[in-house]
């Protein structure tokens, strides 16, 4: 049977903004889904709120709505579009939850809209723990003892019955949100409370803890004829108890016998058949290593993070096939991309090992609770491919970009044995490195396995790597040792460390010894069929398969793992750059290592090298491919920081010269240019001691910004000091300023911040638009809400900023993209940051101006003149209405992270709200970001002294629309004095009921808190914010954001006044 002809129009739900637990993998999925439906001739309608995605690009779906993923908006779109069906399986857990909400409301039935892929029953059976239990019982599939509960009393009873420890899992959340392990009654109570709060269906599962067993994931595909297959079998390095998203994962499985594997396969196929899923499903198993017995941990009846990993680890395009299966195609009717030999009715066979490592945001959130458990904390991931476990692991480690010293971090080397054991038993994100250190100190793999429950197999492989380190130490400049080390994944840099040499010296020696990498294909079939997929990884073996392309090639460096500040937007720009390269007649080659991304889909490029983004790995590819040049502008920091070292090795960097990058990083040189162009910049001065810094600050007057002196990107300001004590504390305790560690003190100008992205061919400059930030300067631009077009900037000023940006671009010899941030105060504009690369606002700006900015920039980088381009292409922005970009945060997933916005970026994703008027656009942005205040209720103010005056007028306005105002004594007194009626609540340190209980017990519906971040987790400000985040109460830390939200609420309410 072929595809269905009774369907014509299909709506695809995206997953919304990137948050922890729901990342770029769904952009990859939904993009594939749209393309797959298009290929089969269906009309597609896509809804997603994240403008940084490829899926929301023109041309991906027939019609794209960048609108909030809420019932209100989806229902409106359904009524307008009247699709025949919804494909809900590409939008992650959000997509499924929304679909269930739609189904329960009756609108799908009313409009006769069908669900494709996963039916409603399957959704309920996998979401509702009781239904799930019933189904597994019917299938005779074993589960850990568990019960779903709705209150605390039941929880205590059941925990008593099965015995501690127990695992707490809120039903129907993503990334294990709100989950935890309780070892006793005391731990159980808060966990169950918060889990109930987090679960959209107010249900919590209590489960017998089987922590310590092996965790295995099977990725399964089924079609409507009941044909089913296993795409990929993956094994978690970390045992059950650590969320799979936070686990190191290897594909294929390594420690199972065939009998065990086939048992899991049988179970997987039985389950996917029972659920009647037409598409993809992932199933998690726990295996008792002592008996080989298994239990089912979880079933995800949709495309998931592991689907993206499975796709990249095997070359099998899970989302494409799942989509085609959902429209009624049989697996053997679905052709595999780029091969004519096989259909999708094929189980990949791997002749390599793929290793996934999670990337956590703890380099950004140094004070966060880094312990790993059932709740996912990683924000991104890398994958690396090698011919064995050792090689894959080491390549993955260096893909993480944790710095040159990560293999031997000081603090780990200095740790006592006791500290190391502690770290092994209570794992944090860096346990892997403690394991290496323990092995170096002579701990044996079996001892470590006993301690950590990590399978002996993996620890034995790590011990092998440590043995190679010893060999390296003992045999400097030895051919055989070098070959062995390279074959096992050691980088030149790691070898240089043991040989006490420079990485370049190792490189030269290696090349002189004829030890060079080869590239092998990833082709689904372990070499059985001729490879047609241009998908390669490096290894040290006999035969090289990758032949340099016939066309002149351009290599694009991707953006590596998703991090805070380096999100999916750089995947967007990378993909567009690749397209433009292809259009210009070159072979587009990408090097990247993030399995979640569209840019690591071999179908979008001429050639994909799935490799770490280090100088060594990039140089190796460059040497083989001999490209016309390398483009680094679109891969964020990861790519940019490689530009200079690559250029030093003679690699041609296309676009803006590397020297220009150097210039903007040099404070004096940059200031000189600013002076020459007669522009302004805030006062700044370097200090090498606390006293000097204080003197500088006194002269400039507080507040001041504290920055690293080598940072010209303006992205990494360390803090804002409002008074001497804060500056003193920070510089002496945290930063430890010294002669060799100077600090840059910058005047903190309070004004409106504007941001411009521009394209320059070094003579002509195109400025597609100006973004106006809503929050005052000082909140990181990535965390600010921004509006396009600017609302509070005169035409004169707009023209001036445009001209000045153009002047800067020319003066800096910019060829490609640049981003300039301005601060405007009293009709004076000062430059606060310049970035000679595509910035994170490019996708948003591309969406709102309807201009393919990245593609234009790429053409310029490849040598086109902007004047010529403007002749043939329409490059005027076409924008209707107002567009608001709003940040989205993942604070609920990260304990002990201060949610106060400040100079350090904290958001993980973003959304866009567009409408004809600002207020409506703002409303949509807030809705899309799930920052929703009810129409009436109680709002709590705790604000810093300088903010009190402005806060009072906001409180007044809240009261006007029907809110009661709550405040602690200080703020309350001020409000009362100025005529705002207010309820006083006790402070954090006072007896209960106090402000914290008011938040926890749901007494207030919103919290406005501007008490400064002081770097501790004990301050009142921190505890109030933490309570709000944990209780799921909307929290606003900026009065500007509050003002914007109020505008929206005022717009939607009536003024009621007594006569």
């Amino acid at each position, binding site marked *: 049977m072929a595809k269905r002809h009774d369907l014509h129009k299909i709506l695809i739900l995206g997953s919304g903004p990137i948050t922890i637990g729901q990342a770029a993998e769904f952009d990859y999925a939904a993009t594939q889904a749209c393309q797959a439906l298009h290929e089969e001739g269906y009309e597609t309608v896509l809804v997603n709120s994240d403008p940084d995605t490829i899926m929301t690009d023109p041309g991906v779906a027939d019609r794209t709505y960048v609108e909030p993923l809420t019932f209100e908006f989806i229902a409106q779109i359904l009524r307008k579009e009247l699709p025949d069906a919804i494909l809900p399986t590409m939008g992650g857990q959000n997509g499924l939850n929304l679909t269930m909400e739609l189904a329960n409301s009756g609108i799908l039935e009313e409009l006769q809209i069908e669900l494709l892929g996963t039916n409603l029953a399957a959704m309920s059976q996998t979401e509702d723990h009781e239904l799930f239990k019933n189904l597994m019982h019917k299938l005779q599939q074993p589960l850990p003892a568990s019960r779903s509960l709705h209150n605390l009393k039941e929880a205590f009873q059941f925990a008593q019955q099965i015995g501690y420890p127990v695992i707490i899992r809120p039903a129907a959340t993503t990334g294990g949100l709100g989950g935890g392990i309780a070892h006793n009654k005391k731990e159980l109570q808060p966990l169950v409370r918060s889990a109930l709060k987090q679960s959209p269906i107010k249900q919590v599962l209590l489960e017998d803890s089987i922590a310590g067993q092996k965790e295995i994931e099977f990725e399964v595909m089924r079609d409507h*004829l*009941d*044909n089913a*297959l296993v795409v990929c*079998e993956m094994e978690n390095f970390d045992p059950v108890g650590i969320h799979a998203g936070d686990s190191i994962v290897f594909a*294929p*499985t*390594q*420690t*199972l*016998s*065939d*009998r065990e*594997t*086939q048992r899991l*396969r*049988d179970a997987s*196929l039985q389950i996917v058949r029972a659920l009647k899923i037409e598409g993809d499903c992932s199933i998690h198993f726990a295996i008792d*290593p*002592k*008996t*080989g017995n298994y239990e089912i941990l979880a079933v995800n009846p949709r495309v998931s993070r592991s689907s993206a990993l499975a796709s990249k680890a095997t070359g099998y395009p899970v989302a494409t096939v799942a989509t085609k299966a959902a429209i009624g195609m*049989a*697996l*053997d009717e679905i052709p595999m991309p780029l091969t004519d*030999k*096989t*259909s999708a*009715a*094929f*189980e*990949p*066979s*791997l*002749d*390599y*090992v793929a290793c996934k490592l999670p990337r956590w945001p703890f380099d950004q959130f140094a004070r966060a609770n880094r312990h790993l458990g059932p709740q996912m904390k990683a924000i991104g991931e890398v994958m690396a491919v090698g*011919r*064995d*476990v050792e090689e894959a692991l080491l390549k993955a480690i260096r893909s993480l970009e944790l710095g040159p010293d990560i293999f031997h971090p000081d603090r780990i080397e200095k740790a006592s044995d006791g500290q190391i054991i502690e770290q092994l038993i209570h794992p944090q994100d860096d346990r892997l490195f403690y394991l290496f250190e323990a092995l170096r100190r002579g701990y044996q*793999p079996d001892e470590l396995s006993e301690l950590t429950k990590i*399978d*002996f*197999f993996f620890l*034995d492989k790590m011990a092998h790597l440590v043995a190679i380190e010893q060999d390296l130490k003992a045999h400097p400049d030895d051919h055989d040792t070098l070959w062995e080390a390279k074959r096992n994944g050691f980088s030149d840099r790691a070898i240089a460390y043991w040989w006490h040499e420079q990485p370049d010296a190792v490189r030269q020696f290696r090349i002189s010894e004829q030890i060079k990498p080869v590239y*092998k294909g990833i082709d689904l*079939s*372990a*070499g*059985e*069929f*001729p490879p047609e997929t241009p998908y390669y990884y490096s290894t040290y*073996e*006999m*035969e090289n*398969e990758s032949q340099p392309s016939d066309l002149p090639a351009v290599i694009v460096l991707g953006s590596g793992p998703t991090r805070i500040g380096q999100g999916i937007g750089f995947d967007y720009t990378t993909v567009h750059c690749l397209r433009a390269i292809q259009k210009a007649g070159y072979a587009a080659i990408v090097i990247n290592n993030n399995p979640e991304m569209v840019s690591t889909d071999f179908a979008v490029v001429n050639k994909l090298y799935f490799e770490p983004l280090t100088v060594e790995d990039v140089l190796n590819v460059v040497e083989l491919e001999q490209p016309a040049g390398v483009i680094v502008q679109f891969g964020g920091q990861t790519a940019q920081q490689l530009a200079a070292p690559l250029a030093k090795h003679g690699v041609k960097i296309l676009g803006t010269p590397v020297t220009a990058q150097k210039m903007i990083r040099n404070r004096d040189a940059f200031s000189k240019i600013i002076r020459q162009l007669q522009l302004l910049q805030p006062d700044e001065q370097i200090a090498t001691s606390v006293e000097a810094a204080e003197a500088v600050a006194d002269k400039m007057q507080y507040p001041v910004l504290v920055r690293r002196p080598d940072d010209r990107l303006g992205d990494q300001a360390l803090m804002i000091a409002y008074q001497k004590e804060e500056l003193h504390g920070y510089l002496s305790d945290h930063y430890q300023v010294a002669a060799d560690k100077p600090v840059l003190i910058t005047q903190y100008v309070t004004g409106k911040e504007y941001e411009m992205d521009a394209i320059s061919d070094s003579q002509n400059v195109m400025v597609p638009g100006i973004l106006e930030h809503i929050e005052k300067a000082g909140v990181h631009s990535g965390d600010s809400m921004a509006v396009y077009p600017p609302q509070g900037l005169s035409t004169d000023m707009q023209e001036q900023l445009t001209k000045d940006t153009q002047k800067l671009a020319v003066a800096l010899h910019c060829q490609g993209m640049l981003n300039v941030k301005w601060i405007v105060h009293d009709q004076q504009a000062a430059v606060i940051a310049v970035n000679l690369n595509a910035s994170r606002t490019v996708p948003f700006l591309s969406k709102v101006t309807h201009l393919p900015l990245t593609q234009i920039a790429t053409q310029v980088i490849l040598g086109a003149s902007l004047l010529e381009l403007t002749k043939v292409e329409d490059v005027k922005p076409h924008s209707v209405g107002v567009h608001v970009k709003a940040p989205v945060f993942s604070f609920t997933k990260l304990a002990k992270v201060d949610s106060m916005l400040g100079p350090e970026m904290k958001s993980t994703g973003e959304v866009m709200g567009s409408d004809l008027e600002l207020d409506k656009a703002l409303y949509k942005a807030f809705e899309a970001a799930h920052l929703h205040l009810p129409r009436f209720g109680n709002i709590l103010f705790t604000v810093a002294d300088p903010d009190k005056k402005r806060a009072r007028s906001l409180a007044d306005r809240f009261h006007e629309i029907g809110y009661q105002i709550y405040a602690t004594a200080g703020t309350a007194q001020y409000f009362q004095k100025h005529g705002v009626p207010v309820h006083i609540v006790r402070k954090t340190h006072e007896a209960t009921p106090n402000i914290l209980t008011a938040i926890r017990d749901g007494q207030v519906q919103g919290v406005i808190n501007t008490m400064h971040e002081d770097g501790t987790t004990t301050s009142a400000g921190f505890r109030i914010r933490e309570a709000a985040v944990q209780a799921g109460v909307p929290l606003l830390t900026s009065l500007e954001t509050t003002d914007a939200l109020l505008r929206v609420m005022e717009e939607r309410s009536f003024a009621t006044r007594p006569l």
Partner: protein
Amino acid sequence: MKRYLILEDGSVFPGRSFGAPLTTTGEIVFTTGMTGYQETITDPSHNGQIIAFTNPQIGNVGINRADYESIKPTCKGVVVRSLDYHPHHHETTMSLDAFLKQEGIPGIEGVDTRALTRRIRTEGAMKASLVDAADEHAFDQLKALVMPKDQVQQVATTKPYPSPADGHRVVVIDLGLKHGLLKMLAHYNCNVTVLPYKTDAKKIFALAPDGVLLSNGPGNPHDIHGVAEMIQAVEGKIPVFAIGLGHELFAMANGAATYKMKFGHHGFNHPVREIATGRIDFTAQNHGYAVDPASINNDQLLVTHIETNDKTIEGLRHRLYPAFSVQFDPEGTPGPHDAIHLFDEFMEMIDAFNLQKQRRQV
């Protein structure tokens, strides 16, 4: 110890020695199965072959007492990329290295097995040796080597033996059968008698079985004499199910021809479509010969299964008699259990045939 894998076409693959430190020769084949190296190595169908594993990590779970497919492995060598010398699994009794030493089978590790696979894919299965020196002498010897033709004789039983139970009486003709096949029949509670492949029809009739199962086995079906004649005598009178080499002989008994495939099917991700229903099973396969589609006599045989990628015939059914065959190993071991339902079909075929017989007698 440095070792070399040399191929008939002159290629040399260096590596390190493991297992028995012997020089060996055989036919080089690659298998793409990712698990179950113990079952693969002990599968009698690999008699005379040097097995290269495409999965680079081999030996991880060692050798256990439960997963033997024969009492003594008769493959000639094992080629891997990365060998695990410290296996760790709750069932492990010894390492693969120790096992091959014990069994006198040489191995080579550290080989670029992907390059080797690509070589075999383009050049076809060929003769190969594991040697200590890849010199002219070694190649001369390899070229001069004549591959044996008595593989079935080497691995199959020479004496009948029973495996009693109280279900259907099934005669298994041992052409090099895997223990998995017997385990499967035990699962169905069959009362099994295993017979040497040279058993003639008369002796089979004397046992009055409910069904005859022809097993898998190694080598070229043309080298086996007498079995086709036995099949011709038995089919129609007793339900027949034939697997692997048995399937090839069943085809030949009914007028079809077989041919040697370029590099065969060795692995267990081979999708097989049942033509009548469209059902796709992923099957464990291990065959270097196949039935020629052009040679099928449509009056006698019906093609029931094909491999979806290269359209190889994977299953046949007799048009008149209760007899069918599959080229793959429906029992898995190692590999998926997707096609286990074929044993149900065999049992149902026996039941239906017995019922018919009873009716006729009434």
